[in-house]
């Protein structure tokens, strides 16, 4: 599998839409197009291998299932994961001749995704910084009373930031990266320590994603319990996720009613105990989020 210039350019465009301070809006851009699961769909269509694309997207989505970015603090930007990582992973898996649906392919994808993940962080800050230029235009417009120009400042100019820091890097990295990744194939034998480690790590990476989510959810030791129950339902009883959700809803309703029945203890009572504690943006552990 190779990636042509035109394919690379399309991937670059999607990178503009989804990267944080994303041109397609946060809901549609970052939270939809940006998610590796959707990225897998897009890359699968663009590169002409839907199954492999989805499989890679699924694998990486697990690692990045908890992308919380409090106060604009992004530790792994989705553009790089979804539109650089997934294409390169697809190339690597194909060139290694792995079965796209096998666990080893998924593990390889996860490792590659994480390797390029940090690239995205740099690009993200670059875009946000360049936006200061357009914002300075905006301030002038406000002062001069040219309010009509604010629309262009908010929706138009930032495309330039993205053309430079989202479109170009994505296009170039996917185009040349594909060749590089293919070349690696001969360098590292599959039964060597390096590849074995890479695949083992790939299998563990989602634990980090889940752990970040847990940090979000768990305040007391008791908060681990529903997590363990969900795990048990899926691991021991082989319930699928929709079924787990159905079961969890029953407990949710019960907990809702229990909280609501805590009538007399005043408002701070329930709040103090309840799940994810709301905190002011930017105050909590920013740089640790993936």
């Amino acid at each position: 599998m190779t990636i042509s210039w035109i394919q690379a350019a399309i991937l670059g465009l999607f990178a503009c839409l989804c990267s944080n301070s994303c041109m397609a809006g946060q809901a549609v851009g970052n939270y939809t197009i940006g998610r590796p699961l959707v990225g897998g769909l897009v890359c699968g269509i663009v590169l002409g291998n839907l199954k492999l694309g989805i499989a890679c997207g699924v694998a990486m989505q697990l690692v990045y299932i908890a992308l919380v970015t409090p106060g604009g603090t992004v530790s792994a930007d989705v553009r790089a994961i979804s539109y650089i990582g997934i294409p390169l992973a697809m190339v690597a898996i194909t060139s290694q001749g792995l079965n796209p649906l096998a666990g080893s392919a998924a593990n390889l994808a996860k490792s590659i995704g994480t390797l390029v993940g940090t690239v995205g962080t740099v690009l993200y800050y670059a875009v946000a910084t360049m936006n200061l230029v357009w914002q300075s235009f905006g301030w002038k417009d406000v002062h001069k009373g040219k309010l009509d120009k604010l629309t262009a400042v908010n929706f138009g100019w930032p495309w330039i930031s993205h053309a430079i820091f989202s479109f170009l890097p994505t296009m170039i990295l996917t185009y040349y990266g594909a060749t590089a990744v293919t070349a690696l194939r001969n360098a590292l034998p599959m039964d060597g320590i390096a590849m074995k480690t890479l695949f083992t790590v790939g299998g563990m990476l989602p634990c980090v994603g889940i752990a970040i989510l847990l940090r979000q959810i768990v305040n007391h030791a008791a908060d681990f319990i529903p997590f363990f129950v969900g795990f048990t339902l899926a691991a021991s009883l082989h319930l699928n996720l929709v079924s787990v959700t159905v079961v969890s809803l029953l407990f949710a309703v019960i907990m809702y009613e229990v909280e609501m029945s805590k009538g007399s203890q005043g408002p701070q009572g329930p709040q103090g105990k309840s799940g994810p504690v709301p905190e002011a943006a930017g105050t909590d552990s920013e740089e640790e989020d993936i």
Partner: protein
Amino acid sequence: MENTNNLKKLDKKTLTNSFHRWFWGALTCFSQEHMQTFGYMASMLPILRKLYPEHKDQVKAIKAYTAFFNTNPMLGSVIVGITASMEQARANGKEIDGETINDMRAGLMGPIAGIGDSLIDGTLIPILLGISLGMSTGGSPLGAIFYIVAWILIAYFGQRFLYFRGYKFGDQAVSFLVGKQGAAVRRAISIVGSMVVGGVLASWVNVTTSLKLYGSNGKVFLNLQDKLNSIFPGLLTVVVTLFCWWLMTKRHVSAIWTMLILVVISFIGVLVGFFNPGLSY
């Protein structure tokens, strides 16, 4: 004396326009310095244009929105709605000035950022993703399509609902997010979140050991993975996850460093034969 007949009232179209600008543009011109300030101004433009026919009044009014703003854009929609209704009251001569508006904005953006980030990014989206992953087995696009449809519907109509609720009830609209019912809802959602996340972990992650001990007769006498499963199916997966959680929460190790520690562990594990991905040559 204000005259009821002359009272200015924002029409549905203007409000919808303002909402759409927030929905699409809250973060497009984001910078670390001003964050969502420009997105906010862009959303208020249609409102100001409608309420103040005079250009100079518009310019005067926009000043209130030049102050720094940042919140969770999903739930934050309610704040934009609230300011629309405050601006309307101000245009009708009520004693509201830019400072009042900014106090409200500054007071709400913090808590709503906290609640929103943990509720939307940290719980709702992972739940949706978890369910969608379950529909993606065998490389099926079903999961991704489900996610796109479900999430966009929730996000669009949810934000829209919040915007108009904010416009209609003003300040009081937030009470259901931060009051007792809000706490109960968050608690309920967190239960669903935890259980689904547990399910995601069990369904999609599978850390196993390949360690087997052989007796003198060459027969396996300890298959560690089987033993661990008989204690609790998926034990190793849970242990690695809790270990990561512990590193990050109790030892304040960053995610990146946690990953590097996993690399080291994997490396050693592969060396001693504890881990073996079992690749074909």
